[in-house]
């Protein structure tokens, strides 16, 4: 049993208890145990095909990164809002460019790409060859921010063992 699976089972148990809210009904708890077993079985079969390494460690670092990301999201949202309501003072300048990406693992790359998409004003288009990411940005400024690489290095730091 890999560490990911162990982590998954713990997550599933928590998920079930929180969803259900009936913590003292033996019938439902039995059914819950059955459901979790079935789910874990299916998940392990997927896992055998597409193993993901070092996910657990990154998941533990996610909250710290998430709070940083939240502030970024608020900042960029305000930027986009300005572009929507005052197009003459804050004109848009859509840009399409490649951004370097220093993550090694698939999960790290995914987190980076999704963070870019999650912050309004930038959206990741596709992975390019050689560890680059094609990004579409609403304004040239947001593209410059991205190229400065703060987010990139933060995601890469999460990958570290």
């Amino acid at each position, binding site marked *: 049993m890999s560490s990911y699976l162990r982590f998954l089972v713990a997550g*599933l148990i928590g*998920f079930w208890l929180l*969803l259900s809210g009936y913590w003292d009904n033996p019938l439902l708890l039995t059914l819950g145990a059955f459901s979790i077993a079935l789910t874990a079985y299916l998940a392990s079969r997927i896992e055998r*095909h597409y193993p993901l390494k070092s996910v657990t460690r990154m998941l533990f670092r996610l909250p710290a990164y998430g709070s940083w990301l939240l502030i970024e999201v608020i900042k960029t949202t305000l930027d986009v809002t300005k572009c929507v309501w005052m197009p003459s003072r804050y004109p848009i300048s859509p840009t399409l460019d490649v951004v370097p990406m220093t993550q090694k693992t698939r999960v790290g790359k995914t987190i980076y790409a999704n963070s870019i998409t999650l912050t309004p004003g930038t959206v990741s288009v596709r992975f390019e060859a050689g560890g680059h990411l094609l990004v579409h940005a609403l304004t040239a400024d947001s593209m410059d921010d991205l190229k400065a690489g703060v987010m990139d290095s933060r995601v890469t730091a999460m990958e570290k063992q």
Partner: protein
Amino acid sequence: MLAATALAVVRLHSLFAIVMLFGIYSLLSACIFVVLDAVDVAFTEAAVGAGISTMLILGTLVITGHHEKNPKHGPWLPLIVVIVTGAVLIWGTLDMPIFGAADNPVHQHVAPRYIEQSPQEIGLPNMVTSVLGSYRGYDTMGEVIVVFAALVGVLSLIGITEGKSPKRQYTSDDKPPRPVLQVMAKLLIPYIFLFGLYVQFHGDFGPGGGFQAGVIFASAIILYTLTFGLDDAYELVSPSVLRPLAAIGVLIYGGTGVVTLLLGGNFLNYSVLADDPVHGQHYGILAIEFGIGLTVATVMMLIFYAFISRGEKRGNEV
């Protein structure tokens, strides 16, 4: 908004855009059900209407091509038919009591009995489940059999080609891998499974039940198929496993009825399943809901497989 959506559906010619508007239509009607306090109906509409039917229609489009054929005759004849039918229907509703009036026949005949006595007789917090599973056990069984019959029809018409096709080697040019989606789907799918099972087993307590759970469970598999490909989905849950399971689901439902017969009750009268009738009802409903969920989930997956594999046979890569 519902009317506007319907109008747009009629106006557009790209079948594809129509499918998406149908999705919106389902979401809207589900909203209306929620507003009318019919939570279970909304649940079903959300799962079946917006989700599965959209996907199945898409699957059909893959097979048939995505533009409406030019109509052979003018629009006037169908229009007249529709208008006449609509007029007759509206004329019919004139006779009906005012919507929501307290003295409607609906509210006087069976509904009070359901509402007043189901807590004592069945003891489940969610009344809809009691009605569906116990009072209307025959109807629901009919529905399950209809679903099963649909599966039989689709399989005999289209059939599933199991992974006999040679493994395709994807080059980056032909079909770029979708790394983001694969990672996300992989992390997400177990929770969807568990959520489906949760809906399955908590149908007694909140909105939900076998039909919705089956659809959710199937949608997890569909997500897996969409992101990883049909061959991998076959390896995870192969059609040859699913086919007997679909039949077993119906058998569980019918078998529960037979067991109640053997124990000396009427067909599908669960009170005899335990010493305490209320507990008996509970177990009975749990059993048939499980049967429903099993059947619906497997049938949905099989029909989806059938459409997708058919699309692949035609040379389209899905």
